[in-house]
């Protein structure tokens, strides 16, 4: 790991030249995999994630079935080459937790009653990581669900805010995350339904408010890009 830079904000700009409230460049591609029922590739700065949706499909083993609605499963996984130090393949505690909170973030919009006894499986593979993989994954998963034609109440849009050199910034990248003072990923369904909220670090209650409002603005921008990607593919939003 590189040494901590002296300052993370220089002359009002962040190390990568961004303003405080600026997202990294985003690229969203819909329907990029053949085998999956729905898929989405997303780049968020240096993050590269692939999401696939399979379902509705049968549930094995049977005792996991629910009589009146679909079960939702979510697996977040990092490729071993996606980070600087090679990661051992397979789930670790971090990825298990991220899978859970991501499912909690996505599940609220899925109209599960459409598919009793079935499963909808969401798989997110992180191909390259640079802080923000869980939010990128949720964004991609949300688009992949739409691509798969799963009925939803809305798209889930997700981004993080951080605190660096005492200032609140949108969408922190790796170095800002490593050396920053706080990190808070959220996910939102328009106009104001929060489905993910995690925080670690240190916010005064005022800072929290400022950060939270900024994060919601970020989600709104991402929502527009998700919508645009779906329109490009399907002509209309969400199929």
């Amino acid at each position, binding site marked *: 790991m590189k040494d901590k830079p002296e300052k993370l904000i220089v002359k009002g700009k962040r190390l990568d030249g961004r303003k405080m409230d600026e997202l990294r460049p985003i690229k969203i591609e819909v329907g990029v995999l053949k085998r999956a029922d729905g898929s989405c590739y997303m780049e968020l700065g240096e993050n590269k994630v692939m999401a696939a949706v399979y379902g509705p499909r049968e549930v094995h083993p049977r005792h996991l079935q629910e009589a009146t609605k679909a079960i*939702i499963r979510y697996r977040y996984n990092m490729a071993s080459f996606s980070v600087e130090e090679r990661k051992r393949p397979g789930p670790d505690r971090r990825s298990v937790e991220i899978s859970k909170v991501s499912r909690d973030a996505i*599940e609220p919009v899925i109209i599960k009653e459409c598919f009793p006894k079935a499963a909808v499986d969401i798989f997110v593979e992180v191909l390259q990581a640079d802080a923000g993989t869980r939010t990128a994954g949720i964004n991609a998963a949300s688009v992949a669900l739409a691509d798969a034609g799963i009925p939803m109440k809305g798209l889930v849009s997700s981004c993080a805010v951080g605190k660096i050199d005492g200032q609140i910034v949108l969408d922190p990248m790796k170095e800002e995350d490593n050396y920053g003072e706080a990190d808070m990923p959220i996910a939102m369904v328009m106009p104001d339904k929060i489905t993910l*909220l995690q925080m670690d670090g240190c916010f005064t209650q005022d800072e*929290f408010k400022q950060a939270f409002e900024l994060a919601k603005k970020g989600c709104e921008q991402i929502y527009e890009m998700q919508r645009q990607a779906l329109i490009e593919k399907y002509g209309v939003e969400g199929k």
Partner: protein
Amino acid sequence: MNESIVAEIRKDYMYDLAKKGERVDGRAFDQYRDISIEPGIVSRAEGSARVQIGNTQVLVGVKIQPGEPFPDTPNEGVIITNAELVPLASPTFEAGPPKEDAIELARVVDRGIRESGALDLAKLCIEEGAKVWMVFIDVHVLDHDGNLIDAAALGAIAALLNAKLPNERYEMGKDAQLPVADLPVAITVAEIGGKLLLDPSLEEEQITPAKLTIIFNKDGSISGMQKSGTGMLTSEQIYQAIEMASKKAKEIRKKFLE
């Protein structure tokens, strides 16, 4: 089938109560069940505490031993937090490696301790780059009647307050108090029928669509948050939850930790 009908009726009843400002066990929305903390219950451990919140019962043990620091923090001690949801504590817990609930519990407790600066990690360095204190925080749930996170977090900080650095055992002088620098308190808020309530019982947890845990430092700042459950919260609910929780955290800290 009957079972699920009963459950449905019970759920409707609890939602109706919530709308009237009431809870099924008669508590106020901002009221905890009785809390008790017994530190030092396990003498084999360097620190320990049993926490009861109503019928929920959690035992936290702290073991401390010398070990190697992580390469990127050569002069800091190491915290390792683990939670075991043993099948003794609930008919729904199964033996085996920790599943997602246990992992989430451990990680939220861990972040509460770590991000709050509760432990001064620099003071846990014995020899830079070579030897530091490893602090193992093990959460052992004994009886699960809801709100495990608050109980476990309270147990963790109480066990750390109770803990000694075992210098004698490793021939490094006298045993000393563990350097505890802050007193984080985790408060979980549950949403039921649009209303927010503290310290959800198991029955309430089973019907709540969303919970939000907020961890507060002594100075009132926030050092951790975790939303869980497949529901949604409005911004207003989140601000309200922070307000409710902030007050309660102060109360609990004062009563049990200071």
